[in-house]
């Protein structure tokens, strides 16, 4: 059984990693609730329990170091549970730091990397934090409790000095909250999003004149004439609008919350099982299983369905029995369909499973920027495919951080504007048909369209003539930022375009609304699952293709086109739209006189002439495999019931290709130089991105992939060298500070190999010192880009320049 053991140790560890992720999320969520609502024995017990379970799990799967940190975390929470340690900001920070440490240690442990030292440090920090202030009693309530980390630092420092002189005291890690936070429970903040997201979703259009809301120019909501953003109502609580919240408010809350603590402390050790988690299915009703097993299930069901259809045609052909007339056959087909639906449902997770991470980001950033921000969620029941949700995590994190950093004003500014001191960021999810709409809204200052126009105007003169709504969408352009001050968080002009790119990958779209002074709302609409896609099927040059319906804006009967500035244009809803023959864009044939399909990418539309329209179908989209390079114009393919393959086209790639051919950029054909359907020249160029930060890596991956490059990634120099030895990249882009082997060492290693001497290397780093720059160029780098001065177009042009020089 050893050979086919379904659960080797690595699997256990991965399973534990998944489980721990959920528990850590819960822990953070409960912790932030605790911070908001004061000490609550049930919460503390629940926190303790999560830490305890993680400790046990880590020990079982052979992660002793993770177990040690979890143990220290448990001990710290035990002090709180026994009321020997009060709940204050430094405590919350310490626990959060512990959670972060565990989160980062687990993957190291799974990968078998050394993490003993990191674990030791994390454990020490938690041990130090135990020495915080005593539990808040009557006396503590009399003092303003959560004003800053001073208390804890004072208490913790001597210990820190004794045990770990090099380490900063835990309590000092977080920035002090500059102003008192607004009263937490005050129901004074207006809902910035009074109406639920109204994305036009009247079911898949059936007629030939299919229309969908365009991504770039969202139509106004159909029915309700109400304003999208409600004006802030005067706060109900008088204290909130006039001055800073009086300390007595906080005291009152704290005293109330603390009373039950002293009243009914759970017996030591009993808390582990004392409090059942409410609103969650009992553990016995849940099973956890690796996602790939569900995928396998879905695949097998798909195969069974295909086999059934083949059986049907065999019946008809060989026995001349029409299967559609057989009850048994119909039953089989129906059951398989239901089974498929159920299996797909098993991959679904609540959208709000992302909430803890976002809540945490809001909290940390609010403290960092000295703002009071409340994070609200709505739509607990909206579910989405796990794979889709994973891809949404970064874009949503980005939007939420933007909302806190750019949207929410400082408490002083809010007071001047008559808004509640505490700003609000809300995450709202809801299912609409086959899509989930997720809105991130804030009640902050809104987006200054004039500034957007100004920022874009330096490179695009049409910006000045755009109407407000069109100009607002300029924020999704690369390199555009209106933030005058570059913060540690945002304002570098790399952001919303990356959000858009990530959404593109999950066939989602984004819309924005903003009311100056009242707030901003971003709405993301994504398909619930990527497994099936509603498509319009057309014929072009004798072959059928599927075009995802979400990118089809309209279908036009055969009509004349006019040539404007050398480009063929046609009128769509009174606006000129470029038109091409799909066959010539795909290189499969010439122009035709049939109907056209107007396809909307993220920023522009394009009409494609086809032979004829066939029908609409749900296509189970599969990738084309690793062997074939990524084809921007082809999203994937589906196997049809008759066994044929239906290619699914990708709007954005198609439009890009058509534009390049249209604008006389002969590189499309030139690159193909006699070969049948060779890719565009630069698509063949491969870039190796080396960075230990997942987000940076993925951001760069999406930037380059969108620009048509092939991208591979490595997390450190060593890994990069291994990859390079397998396949020589055309260019290497590396971070400096990385574990195992840093960017300088990597560059030196590359330059040390004669076969690689001509591979351009760009160093991308947050260090901007002359010394570093000199060192980078000395060790043989061709370019040195500082992250803070980093914008997408500069990066792309640097890469293009170097690749051009090399060829």
């Amino acid at each position, binding site marked *: 059984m050893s050979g086919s053991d379904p659960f080797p140790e690595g699997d256990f560890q991965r399973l534990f990693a998944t489980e721990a992720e959920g528990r850590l999320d819960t822990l953070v969520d409960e912790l932030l609730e605790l911070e908001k609502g004061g000490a609550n024995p049930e919460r503390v017990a629940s926190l303790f329990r999560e830490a305890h379970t993680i400790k046990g799990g880590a020990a079982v799967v052979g992660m002793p170091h993770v177990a040690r940190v979890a143990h220290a975390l448990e001990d710290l929470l035990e002090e709180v549970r026994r009321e020997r340690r009060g709940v204050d900001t430094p405590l919350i920070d310490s626990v959060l730091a512990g959670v972060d440490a565990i989160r980062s240690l687990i993957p190291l442990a799974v990968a078998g990397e050394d993490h003993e030292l990191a674990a030791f440090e994390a454990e020490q920090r938690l041990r130090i934090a135990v020495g915080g202030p005593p539990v808040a009693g009557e006396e503590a309530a009399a003092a303003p409790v959560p004003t800053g980390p001073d208390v804890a630092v004072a208490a913790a420092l001597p210990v820190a000095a004794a045990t770990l002189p090099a380490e900063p005291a835990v309590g000092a890690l977080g920035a002090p909250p500059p102003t008192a936070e607004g009263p937490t429970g005050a129901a004074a903040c207006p809902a910035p999003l009074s109406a639920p997201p109204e994305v036009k979703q009247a079911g898949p259009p059936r007629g030939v004149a299919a229309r969908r809301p365009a991504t770039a120019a969202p139509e106004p909501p159909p029915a309700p004439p109400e304003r999208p953003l409600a004006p802030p109502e005067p706060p109900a609580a008088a204290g909130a609008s006039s001055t800073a919240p009086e300390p007595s408010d906080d005291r009152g809350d704290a005293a109330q919350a603390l009373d039950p603590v002293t009243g009914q402390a759970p017996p030591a050790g009993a808390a582990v099982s004392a409090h059942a988690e409410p609103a969650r299915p009992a553990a016995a009703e849940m099973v956890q299983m690796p996602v790939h097993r569900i995928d396998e299930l879905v*695949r097998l069901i*798909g*195969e069974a369905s*295909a086999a059934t259809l083949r059986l049907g045609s065999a019946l008809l052909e060989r026995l001349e029995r029409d299967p559609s007339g057989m009850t048994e056959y119909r039953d089989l087909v129906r059951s398989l369909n239901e089974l498929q639906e159920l299996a797909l449902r098993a991959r679904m997770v609540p959208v709000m499973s992302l909430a803890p991470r976002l809540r945490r980001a809001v909290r940390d950033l609010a403290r960092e920027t000295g703002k009071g921000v409340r994070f609200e969620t709505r739509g607990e029941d909206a579910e989405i495919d796990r794979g889709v949700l994973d891809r949404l995590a970064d874009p949503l994190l980005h939007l939420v951080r933007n909302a806190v950093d750019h949207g929410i004003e400082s408490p002083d500014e809010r007071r001047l504007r008559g808004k509640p001191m505490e700003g609000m960021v809300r995450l709202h999810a809801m299912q609409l048909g086959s899509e989930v709409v997720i809105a991130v809204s804030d009640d902050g200052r809104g987006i200054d369209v004039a500034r957007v126009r100004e920022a874009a105007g330096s490179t695009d003169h049409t910006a000045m003539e755009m109407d407000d709504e069109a100009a607002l969408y300029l924020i999704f352009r690369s390199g555009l930022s209106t933030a005058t001050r570059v913060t540690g968080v945002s304002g570098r002009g790399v952001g919303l375009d990356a959000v858009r790119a990530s959404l593109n990958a999950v066939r989602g779209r984004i819309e924005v609304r903003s009311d100056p002074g009242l707030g901003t709302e971003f709405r993301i609409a994504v398909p619930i699952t990527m497994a099936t896609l509603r498509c319009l099927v057309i014929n072009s040059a004798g*072959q059928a293709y599927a075009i995802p319906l979400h990118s089809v804006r309209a279908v036009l009967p055969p009509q004349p086109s006019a040539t404007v500035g050398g480009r063929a244009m046609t009128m769509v809803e009174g606006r000129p739209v470029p038109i091409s023959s799909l066959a010539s864009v*795909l*290189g*499969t044939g010439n122009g035709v006189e049939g109907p056209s399909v107007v396809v909307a990418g993220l920023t522009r539309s394009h009409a494609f002439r086809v032979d004829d329209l066939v029908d609409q179908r749900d296509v189970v989209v*599969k*990738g*084309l*495999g*690793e*062997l*074939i*390079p990524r*084809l*921007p*114009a*082809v999203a994937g*393919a589906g*196997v049809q019931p008759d*066994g*044929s*393959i*239906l*290619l699914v086209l990708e709007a954005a790639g198609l439009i890009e*290709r058509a534009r390049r051919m249209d604008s006389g950029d002969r590189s499309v054909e030139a690159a193909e130089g006699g*070969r*049948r*359907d*060779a*890719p565009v020249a630069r*698509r*063949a160029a*491969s870039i190796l991105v080396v960075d230990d930060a997942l987000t940076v890596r993925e951001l760069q991956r999406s930037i380059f992939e969108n620009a048509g490059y*092939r991208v591979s990634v490595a997390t450190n120099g060593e890994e990069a060298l291994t990859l390079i030895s397998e*396949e*020589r990249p055309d260019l290497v882009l590396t971070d400096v500070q990385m574990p195992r082997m840093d960017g300088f060492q990597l560059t030196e290693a590359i330059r040390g190999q004669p076969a690689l001497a001509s591979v351009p290397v760009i160093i991308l780093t947050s260090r901007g010192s002359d010394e570093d720059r000199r060192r980078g160029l000395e060790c043989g780098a061709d370019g040195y880009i500082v992250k803070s001065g980093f914008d997408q177009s500069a990066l792309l042009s640097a890469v293009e320049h170097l690749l051009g020089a090399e060829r």
Partner: protein
Amino acid sequence: MPTAPAPSVNAGQLALLIPVGSDTYALPLEAVREVVVDPRVTELPTSPAVVRGVFNVRGDIVPLLDTALLLGLRPVIEEPYAVLIETAHGIAGLVATEMPMTVRLSESVGHSDMEGTTETYLVGDSRLAVALDVSTLLSPARISR
């Protein structure tokens, strides 16, 4: 996890001989999953020329590659047979222009200099077969170049 099959075939081993045009190539039999007769190929626009298209093998979408063009030779004209190969990057089909057959290879008669090939073997009385190096030939880098 299936272990990766040997990238090329050696003397004394079973090989599948695939005729491509006027040439014959040898693949390690253990790397071959099956031979599909008259695959129904869907052309894949915008893909590299070496990709003849994709075809359906029991629900899997498999690329069909032009064996000759992969080796830098003149492309094949038709694709009457597809030899399914397991590679480190998934399954791929290689075009054979006549029915492939299995033989046990005798000693090598010489080294083959062509990139993506290893040794030359005498099969039958006067036919030469060149052993293909699957791992070199069927890599994303080679296909997209």
